[in-house]
């Protein structure tokens, strides 16, 4: 005969804060745990926010899992790890870089900054964070694929233009592989997005993988060239 509804308001408020406190719902982490993987050519870590983590869909339907399957089918022996954290900003990404490096990646697909934009964070800060991450990864001989992002247009042309330039500029300066726009063909299309309008559906993720796949193989080429170029340690 418990009545638990009295505390509702307080409770929901607190839950709201607890959730909001660390930002939106679902997910993080990897594809199926590395169950004694076969000999691999390398590890790809997908570092990013909810778009990488697969907010609102099963992890198996988010792009890292789809990418892993696609690579396997095409004969690439790469382990793909989903290291996406919903709600993460570029500042968060920067501060967990060390942790991420414990996964010992050869390739990192860096998809971050969207949450900065949605919260109106000054693009200069986002730019600085991403540039630092890229530089750190490059310094460790990790091949970087930078997922270009565009901001929702309701934020205004001044803001969206500054935001878009972050990715092209960094790619130009550092020479990393750039996916010009990660959500190309998906963003703004109701049929490929969940009801919230910004998170892709499983169908949307398939389009994303189709779209980014050439950039990934380009990066794999780079990795293979590098490993061939440098003697094994």
């Amino acid at each position, binding site marked *: 005969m418990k009545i638990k509804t009295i505390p509702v*308001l307080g409770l929901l408020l607190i839950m709201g804060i607890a959730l909001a406190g660390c930002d939106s719902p*679902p997910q*993080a982490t990897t594809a199926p745990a590395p169950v004694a993987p076969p000999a691999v050519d390398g590890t790809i870590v997908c570092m990013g926010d909810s778009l990488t983590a697969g907010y609102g869909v099963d992890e198996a339907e988010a792009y890292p899992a789809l990418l892993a399957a696609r690579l396997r089918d095409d004969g690439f022996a790469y382990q793909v790890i989903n290291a996406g954290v919903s709600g993460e900003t570029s500042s968060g990404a920067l501060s967990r870089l060390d942790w991420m490096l414990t996964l010992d990646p050869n390739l990192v697909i860096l998809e971050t900054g969207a949450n900065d934009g*949605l919260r109106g964070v000054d693009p200069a800060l986002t730019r600085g964070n991403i540039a630092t991450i890229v530089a750190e990864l490059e310094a460790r001989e990790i091949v970087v694929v930078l997922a270009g992002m565009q901001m929702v247009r*309701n934020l205004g042309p001044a803001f969206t233009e500054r935001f878009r330039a972050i990715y092209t500029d960094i790619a130009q300066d550092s020479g990393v592989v750039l996916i010009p726009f990660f959500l190309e063909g998906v963003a703004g299309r109701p049929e490929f997005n969940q009801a919230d309008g910004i998170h892709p559906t499983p169908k949307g993720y398939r389009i994303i993988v189709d779209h980014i796949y050439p950039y990934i193989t380009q990066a794999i080429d780079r990795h293979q060239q590098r490993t061939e170029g440098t003697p094994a340690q």
Partner: protein
Amino acid sequence: MHLGLLIRMILREVRQNRQQTAVLFLCIVLSVVGLTALGGFQANVQQAMLRDARQLHAADVIARSSFPFLPAMEAKLARYAERPDVATARVWEFYTVVRTMDASASLLSAVKVVEPGYPFYGQVATASGLPFTEMLTPGNVLVEQALLDRLGLSVGSRIYLGDVAMMIRDVVISEPDRPVTVFTLGPRIFVNARDRGKLGLITQGSRVRYKALLRLPEGLTPETVQKDLLSTADLAQERVDTFRSADSRLKRIFDNLLFFLKLVSIFTLLLAGIGIQSVLTALLRTRIKTMAAMKALGAPNAFVMHLYMGLVLLLSMVGTLCGVLAGLALQEGLGRLLSDLVPVTPSFRIVWPAVGESLLVGLLAVALFAARPLLGLRHLKPSALFRHEEGHRRVRLGEGGVVLVTTLFFVGLVLWHLDDLRTGAYFIAGILGLVGIVWAAAWLYLKGLRRLPTRHLVLRQAIRGLFRPRNATQPILVTLMASLTLIFAIFLTEKNLNATFVDAYPEDTPNVFFLDIQRGQTDRFTQTVGRTSQFYPVVRAKLMAINGNAVDPARERQRKSDNLARPFNLTYRHHLLENEKIIAGKTLFQAGGGNFQVSVLDRIAEIGNIRLGDRLRFKIQGVPLDARVVSIRTRTRESMQPFFYFVFPEATLRQAPQTIFTALRVAPEAIAALQNQVVQALPNVTVLDASRTIRQVADALGRFSQAIRFFTLFSMAAGILLVASSIIATRSARIREAVYFKILGARRRFVLYVFSLENALLGASSAVGGLLLAHLISWVVCTRYFDIAYKTYPAASLSGLMAGIAVVMAVGLSASRAIMRRKPAQFLRTHAAE
């Protein structure tokens, strides 16, 4: 036939027994006040709630989507818009970054573009006091004060929305359809729909909430329209709600409040009823000689019955009427008290069914409680004039029936008001159990007391007094203890409810939340805000498996409550928070247990059926972590402090990627400045301003507690009356005692001592017993029913105890005051037969 005589005699009875009739009258009044007030209030609140819900939507029906409406929906909406009796308005909501004209500052703001007609219900309040629609003309915007504060602007300034300069015409104070529980990332800007195209912000690639509001005429129900719109909607992206389908949390809180108040009211009715019975019994007992004399002089049985029935009828009619009037006044007060909770004051309305019900219940209660003493009159013989028997009589068949009917009446009333059969059954069983326990306790106590050897004269006399022949000490003790139990129980429950809900929002409740502080930024943060705060590290992770059984996301998503498949926020620390306690396991972590241990909050332990010793596998952004459950915590009260389901030892998570969360209490007018400072120093930190929400919640809960206290006072008043009535019931026996003492040469002071001590004994024993039982009852109610932690409040309990004793003594002495003044000779003359 003897109507005139009857009325004259009734009035004479009233005059001669002022004290008793006054108590009787008050008991009757009290029995109906609570129910009347609550009944009417509930009906009014329900109506206000519906109106409130309408305002929260600003419409009868509302369609929403994150995309432009699909053609099917557009076609349907257009058809409704064509109807002359239906009004429609579109609303677009989105965030944008506004800039000052010199581009020196920019700010994320929440834009709401509205068509004329919005809002259909409620009002957008402006600082100028001028109508919203008059101010929101094309080219102008209305903004929240926070926007001006943060950008350093004032009314009349211009800002860029997109690439278009707009003039700030006025400040918005409130809007009806802004949900209570919302944390916004930026201040509100209202824009006229005619400027929509010019701004160019709603376009392909924009993230916008599209809404269509409909106001319907009488006769066209929101549900019909909702069904019609939904029939062709794409449910994957379009939603249609009516103001009625919205789930109001406030309404649920109201329901719970009313439920508690109803319990209190029924208690009050019960107490008042018992009071009626004992006062009437006492009254009739003192009139036995009179009645016997009337019978001896040839008055028919019916006349005597009519006389006292008439007395009861008169008192109950006047009393019930007064009670209903007082109840209506109370309802009005209650309405005022709680009016700020809903955007509009629930208008005062006499709810006739509720009034009728109260009248009926009140009269029935009086009739039932009065029936037993009145029925006793049937068997009164003229010979009673010469006999001394007034106390013990066998319960006759008719009276047994009355008891049964009274019980049934209360059972029915409880079930009717509590809706829920099981709760009602528990309630009744609880009351019966209480009476049983109290009866047994009183019996044991009196038995022990009787055997107590005492040398002290006053004390001995006082104890003897309790065992006076024909003195109904046990029934008095039982009623006193029962009523004190109920009073204390309500008092303690109220205190615990308050502590959990109201005091959880003290003055220093944090109202601004800071997210995404990075490690290494804490010192800078503290410097910037100029004071220290508690930093909570937050590590995002997923729970993968419990004891090797993988968590199934598909199954988890079907749960209504929280689910195990969502990402959790882990934290690390080695202490319990001040509102936490361990319910399983000895300490938060086991010494020497290594780093792979975790403490789990009971709520998630229940959801996941997680027990002590279980192995949990987490994955922290790619890295697996296994930990054993070594303790389960619970939260002892609600508060605005954050809570964490999973707590780890520091060494386990110190290296894990984490952000830091903190909360501060900031004076509302200083929030904007603080936001500016923080954003300047640490632009990655997100600041959530919850001041408005917290203020509303704290305010609401404060008012609830006032309402509860109000009703508790009524119940206490009824309890005190009951104490008074039981003392009045033993009045005649006391008079005799006082007289004997005086005849035997005792001074007034001695008699006063004996009586005081007797009352003190009575008060102390019933208060102590009552308090113990009350703790038991409130513990059950709090922990089982409201599911909140229970505190004993020793100091308050002690003062309650003292107050209880004081009341019994005060009432007892005041009732005995008249007795003390009696001259022995005068008494002996009138009671010569004895």
